[in-house]
Every structure is written in C-alpha cells, then in structure tokens.
C-alpha cells in the first residue's frame, strides 16, 4: 500500500514505517543551519530508501551518504542523501566510520525539489532497528505531515 505522494523504494513493512516515522520525530535534533530546508527539499515529498551504503562523505557543510537502491523493477539506482553538519554529529558521538561500505540501511527523509535521486535524511536505520546520525540538516523543515 502506498500513500499518495509518498515514494517508497524497496520492500518496507508499514508497521515499521510508522515506528520509523515516530523515531524520526523523536530523534531529529537539528544539527545544521547551512541552508534553508525549503531551498532544496520538499517536505511534502517524504521518501523511504532501503539500500546498501556505497560511500559516506564526512565533510562540511553537510555529510552525504550514498547508497545503491533497487527500484520496483529490481534495477540498482544510485541515490545520495544529505545529513547534518559533521561537527555537530561528531559532538553527538558519530564518526565517518559509523556506517561501513556495503551496510544495509533504511533512510527516512524528504526528496529534493529538482527530481534527482537526492534526499534530506531525517533518520538512518540499521537492520536491527538502531538509528545512526540522529538529526537532520532540515531544522527549519515544516513538521512532518
């Protein structure tokens, strides 16, 4: 089942999606003010991505996580997701080694306005349910609908 306007990629149990959304609200400490959320992303286009990590860029002004995601036809598509500022994430206990190459993750976030395979990530979840990189670059984003 897919809600209108929600772009789900990969198999995702709806119960876990709801739990994930709750965690997203609880864990979304704002960690960067580099730019306005609305300058780049659309809060009305939430996305859930499930894939394997291909690279993490731990650089200012935002970290970026790259992942390969299978679309509904089973084709692998490269995605990139913006996270918070590395300095604040470091102070929160995370590091560039928190995520490893090939690690399976589920990212809950919002799509870029330009239609590219780009997202702003609110929460990155590991298969066992743990979350990493708590916090988003979208501290001024409208409340999740």
């Amino acid at each position, binding site marked *: 089942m897919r809600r209108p306007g929600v772009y789900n990629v990969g198999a995702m149990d709806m119960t876990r999606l709801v739990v994930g959304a709750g965690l997203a609200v609880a864990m979304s400490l704002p960690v960067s003010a580099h730019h306005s959320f609305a300058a780049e992303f659309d809060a009305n286009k939430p996305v859930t991505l499930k894939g394997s990590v291909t690279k993490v860029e731990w*650089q200012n002004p935002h970290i970026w996580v790259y992942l390969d995601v299978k679309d509904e036809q089973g084709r692998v598509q490269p995605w990139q997701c913006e996270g918070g500022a590395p300095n604040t994430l470091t102070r929160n206990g995370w590091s560039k080694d928190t995520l490893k190459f090939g690690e399976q993750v589920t990212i809950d976030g919002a799509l870029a306005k330009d239609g590219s395979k780009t997202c702003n990530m609110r929460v990155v979840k590991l298969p066992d349910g743990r979350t990493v990189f708590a916090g988003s670059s979208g501290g001024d984003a409208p409340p999740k609908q």
Partner: protein
Amino acid sequence: MKVILAIAVVLAVSAPAPVLAQQDYKPPTGPAPRTASGKVDFSGLWQKPYVPDLTKDGKDHKGLAELPFTPWGEADWKKYDAAEGDYTGACLPFGMTRSVNTPEPMQIMQSDTYFTFLFEQNSWFHVVPIDGRPHRKGEPTWFGDSVGRWEGDTLVIDTVNFNGRTRLDTVGHPHSDQLHLVQRFSRPDLGHISHEMIIEDPKTFTKPWKSTRTFTLRTDWEMMEHSCEENNKSLWEGRIKIPKR
C-alpha cells in the same frame, strides 16, 4: 551458549555510540567571572540554541509569534521563496542574527578594548570595539558595524550599517538595510549568558521587538574547523541558487 555470548559481545562492541552525552552535561557553577579591570568576562565557548525561526519558542529561546511588519516587510516575507535563492546555501556571509542562531557553538574572547565573536559556523568572526569609540563610517557590510558599551554589568552591542542582503533567520524573515540591532549580554552565573536581541528596522517593522535566549558554557568542547565551501554539493549541483541582487 558460547556462540550466543560471542555474538552478543560482537553486537555490543559494534553498536553505535549513544547520543546522550550532550543531555548529561552540566555546566560549572559559581559567580560570573570578572576581568582584571572588574568588568564581567564573557569569554568562553558557548552552546547556543538553534533558532531557525524567530517567531517560535524553543529550548533556551523565546521569540515573538506575530512580527509587527510594515506593509513592505509583510510583502517581502510573503513573496520570499528560498528555492529562488538562498544566500546561506551559497556560502555567503550569514550576518549577525543568523550566525547567532546557528546550532554550532561560538567562542567569545574579550579584553578591555574588544569583544570578539568567533563563530564555528563557516569559521566567521566579528570584532566589536567596547572602549567607547563611535561607529565607523564606511560601506555597508553583511555583519554590520558594531560598537559596545557597558550598562552596569550588561554589555550592550549596537550594530548598524548592514548591507540588507541577509535574512534574520533560516526560514527567511526579512530585514532591510535600515536594520539597527542591539544585543544585550549579561552573565547571571558562571555557566550561562542571558542574551537579548532587539530588532529595530523602520522599513520592515512598525516597532522594535526582541528575541531572548540562554547560552551555556561548554567546558567539554573545543572549537572545530568548519568550511562552508568544502563540499557544498547542493550549490555545485544546482539544487540551491544564489539570490539575484
């Protein structure tokens, strides 16, 4: 059993660190320190509340829900669309209010002559003479021209001559080049600064209004390098635009 125990140990070791360290922090207690000349000393590394929207209250921040816009201010606010241009996303100088609003900390260094803001965000700084000299005459700038004076134990920093190209907060509340910003710093105890930001701008607002917040001394933090240009993919890949002038 040994196998299960070994798996449990591996999982425990590989688990990401908890994110509770900041919540557990308690600032030092005691009276506000003073300089050799007897002035309140604001020096230190300060944690600031992130204030992306000056109309919203938050932890350690109180804003103003309804801003007293003039017709010009109201019109500018209504037409603002960050997708049409975001100067901070383009790594242009944030200006004073948005630099203070950021979640990244700032270090204050103070002498009898100067009060200096060292903002971690983008490694920007702003130097304020506090020895009684008047404002300089010169071209308008992003951070404006600041001078400070003492009112008892409160340091009052007065800033004018802004270029009008910045916005007051991340959501984009406007101001004009007529902005007159007053920041009042007091230190009720060793661990805290009380900060008032009074915004006066007759082109944008019908009357002055203020934002108040509390800064917390972080003796467990050090300033870190921060470069906006290091990996600003959003600008380079065209998703963020530079505002038209």
